[in-house]
């Protein structure tokens, strides 16, 4: 390793205890280990754009050699990010914000559009024969989750409705069951988080004995949901390979700081669909927080 | 008598299914101390609360300075010159003496948006009024919670007097006090009366009543036993009236009649 180890800060909008974001954070940490850079990962405690912009400001004050941010709300974060760019800090955007990345002055974007992923999932579920779908949202008002539902509605084409729930698996299970009981037409469930919404949805459908005629898919991965996919109870999981969203920006920024190397274009990290064929091999990695 | 400053006529007050007052008449004149006596639950507090605008009478008329009035709030009674020192004193223990003294009628200076408390005046007046009543405060921003019971009573009374009460109602000001403090409260009542203020003094201690009272009205279970003047009644007659008579005699017998 030559020179002083660069300092890189990653600021995202996902809470540290969110299963999805904990994988991103693991990617960040792995990259830190591999590159030897000083990396710190920060996120507000709730989905809070105002707090996030303050965290970016705090990071910029420390004049890191690289900054990686997710951009779920370009308006809210614009000033902070532009301040970083103006201060000469190389910025990479990750996860959300593919459309505004260039505009904000970021070097590139690693990730996948939430809307796009939702649309692809919707299309796939429509292909499976679904006509009436629900989108199980465990964190109402989180914009990136809303975008997934919107994309789903677009791609699915037929009737869709959002089912708002809490973070509590028992509540999710009961609500999904209630939805299925009160509307027999529902034949498609898209859950927005594998552990919090996906697993209870499978349990609900199973308890109603309707595994055969209800298609279930979920965003993100969890070992138990993958097991359900492998067992044929659920159809597929949408994988953004978010480990890459943590790993790549850090290693790109490290290479930039050390050697001035930077890829020329955005890196699409997903979507990648995990189906019955490949679910089994992903389970182990998922239970370690890598996928 | 036409010189009564407050006259209550046939006041009734019901609380749901409880009849607290069933037709009480009463009046008080400037410069006299009219004692309202009665056992616990006789309705004394309820009666004076209707007088001071806390409760509205279910029935009955109220005439202040010759005009019939209906009070919608304690505020209105106060504005009509009826000041009350409640049994529970209406003081906030955590607040300073000065702030309690002026509570609800704070002095201000300045104008418009810059109108603010005139703390200097407030403290000065409080200190001097308290001194007039014989109490030397350590500091004007001492919390009321740190005062003794007698001192609190005195704050409450001097507050009422200062704000130009024409009628001063005292609800059992002496019940929680020691001898010395009781004496000082009674002396205060005496002083206030001599200033020409009408005093309504509620107690169930006959001796305290006899010490300062000009007239006495005894309440019993929401009814009045009538009014008599100081020269027409003795302490023991009053006592009998209040207690209801016969039972008391037995008890006193067994205890030597010293109650």
């Amino acid at each position: 390793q030559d020179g002083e180890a660069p300092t890189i800060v990653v600021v995202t909008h996902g809470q540290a205890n969110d299963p999805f974001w904990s994988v991103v954070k693991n990617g960040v940490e792995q990259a830190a280990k591999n590159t030897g850079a000083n990396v710190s990962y920060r996120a507000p405690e709730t989905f809070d754009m105002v707090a996030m912009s303050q965290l970016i400001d705090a990071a910029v004050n420390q004049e890191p050699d690289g900054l990686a941010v997710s951009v779920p709300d370009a308006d809210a974060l614009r000033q902070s990010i532009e301040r970083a760019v103006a201060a000469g800090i190389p910025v990479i955007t990750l996860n959300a914000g593919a459309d505004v990345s260039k505009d904000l002055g970021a070097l590139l974007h690693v990730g996948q559009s939430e809307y796009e992923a939702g649309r692809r999932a919707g299309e796939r579920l429509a292909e499976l024969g679904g006509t009436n779908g629900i989108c199980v949202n465990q964190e109402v008002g989180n914009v990136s989750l809303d975008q997934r539902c919107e994309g789903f509605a677009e791609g699915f084409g037929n009737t869709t409705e959002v089912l708002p729930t809490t973070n509590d698996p028992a509540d999710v299970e009961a609500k999904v069951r209630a939805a299925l009981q009160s509307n027999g037409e529902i034949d498609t469930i898209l859950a927005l988080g594998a552990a919090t919404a996906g697993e209870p949805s499978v349990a609900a459908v199973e308890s109603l004995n309707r595994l055969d005629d209800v298609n279930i898919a979920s965003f993100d991965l969890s070992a138990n949901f993958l097991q359900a996919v492998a067992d044929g109870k659920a159809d597929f999981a949408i994988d953004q390979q978010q480990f890459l969203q943590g790993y790549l920006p850090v290693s790109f920024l490290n290479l930039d700081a050390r050697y001035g190397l930077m890829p020329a274009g955005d890196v699409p990290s997903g979507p990648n669909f995990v189906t019955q064929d490949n679910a089994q091999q992903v389970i182990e990695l998922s239970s370690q927080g890598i996928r | 008598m036409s010189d009564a400053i407050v006259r209550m006529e046939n006041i009734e007050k019901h609380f749901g299914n409880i009849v607290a007052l069933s037709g009480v008449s009463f009046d008080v004149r400037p410069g006299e101390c009219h004692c309202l006596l009665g056992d616990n639950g006789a309705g004394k507090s309820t009666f004076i609360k209707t007088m001071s605008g806390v409760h509205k009478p279910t029935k009955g008329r109220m005439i202040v300075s010759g005009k019939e009035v209906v009070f919608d709030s304690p505020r209105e009674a106060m504005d009509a010159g009826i000041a009350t020192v409640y049994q529970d004193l209406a003081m906030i223990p955590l607040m300073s003496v000065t702030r309690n003294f002026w509570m609800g009628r704070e002095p201000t200076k300045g104008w418009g948006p810059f109108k603010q408390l005139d703390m200097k005046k407030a403290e000065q007046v409080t200190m001097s009024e308290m001194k007039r009543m014989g109490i030397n405060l350590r500091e004007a921003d001492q919390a009321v919670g740190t005062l003794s019971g007698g001192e609190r009573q005195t704050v409450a009374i001097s507050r009422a007097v200062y704000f130009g009460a024409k009628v001063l109602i005292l609800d059992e000001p002496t019940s929680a006090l020691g001898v010395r403090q009781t004496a000082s409260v009674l002396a205060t009542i005496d002083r206030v009366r001599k200033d020409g203020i009408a005093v309504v003094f509620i107690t169930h201690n006959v001796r305290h009543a006899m010490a300062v009272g000009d007239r006495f009205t005894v309440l019993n279970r929401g009814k009045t036993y009538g009014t008599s003047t100081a020269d027409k009644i003795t302490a023991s007659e009053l006592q009998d009236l209040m207690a209801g008579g016969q039972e008391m005699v037995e008890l006193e017998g067994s205890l030597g009649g010293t109650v």
Partner: protein
Amino acid sequence: MTVETADKDERLKESSFVSQLLKRPELGAIAGVVAVTVFFLFTANPVMFSLSGVLNFLTPAAQLGILALGAALLMVGGEFDLSVGSMVAFTGLVFGVALTVFQLPLLLAIAMTFAVAGLFGLVNAEIVLRTGLPSFIVTLAFLFILRGLSLVGLKWATNGSTQLRGIRESVENDWLAPVFSGRAFTGLFEWMAGNGWIEAFSNGKPKVDGIPVEILWFVGLTLILTWVLLRTPAGNWIFAAGGDANSAKNSGVPVRRVKMALFVLTACCAALVAILTVLDAGSTDARRGFQKEFEAIIAAVIGGCLLTGGYGSAIGAFFGSIIFGMVLIGLTYTQIDQDWYQVFLGGMLLIAVLFNNIIRKRVTGER
């Protein structure tokens, strides 16, 4: 307090037996249950009140209810615990780790979970009792601390994931597992379905194959705690400690011990919920129990507990939780746009509490 007499007084009507009954704190909650039921009878899909529908909303109600029972007793005893939600996550982690990492048998894992919960309950109690700080603020600190520790612990236990799994597998053959997970009376239900007494799927399997064990725990705990509160010296002490800690102490009630026991009980209720839900789900994650502390307090208050302590009941918390569960799940059975869900939740809470209040005032003649 001014001394007001209430002798055998000709000025007072005798109170009837019925109005005696109606003075109980849980009355309002029962009235609330009725009101909510009527509302949903008119607006919701009738399937909500079928056997499977009822069990469906009773399950979350039971999980919340176990927490609400602890919260209710603690509130009667004059204290709050805002850390129960985080405690569910933390004890869930402890339980999962005991089973999967330490490979303990279920019995020991459960014992360990309760021990840890009890320990934190004691810590809460010690700080509150030693410093005299309001329990509201002390337990709020533990809300954050325990939530944070759950995350750290999970990552440590799983090498980086926030979900700990494989729990169901590790208890698969444990004799104790049916007590804490799955459904009870499955044989009975199958038999009833076979006879056509309860709904069944077209293939003859009963739509409901048993009663979820959490409901039994919930009912059992309600009965026990009601009994404790009303029929044991300890219950008397709880009311006394919450009504006036100083007076109680002066009368020889061991107030310190009572409050400690209540904090421990509340924490153990959280641990029980953790065990039940973790076994049910087969996994645990860092967000379990999020905001459950408030739901528990709401349920207890709907159930007639006074925020100031000294008054309330376990049975009230029972019905309060059921109201909460019905509102939470019930809206899904209606045609109401789901975006309105929180508006309705808040509105129904408000109506339930107002209704509760009106009924109580009517009946007790309170002013």
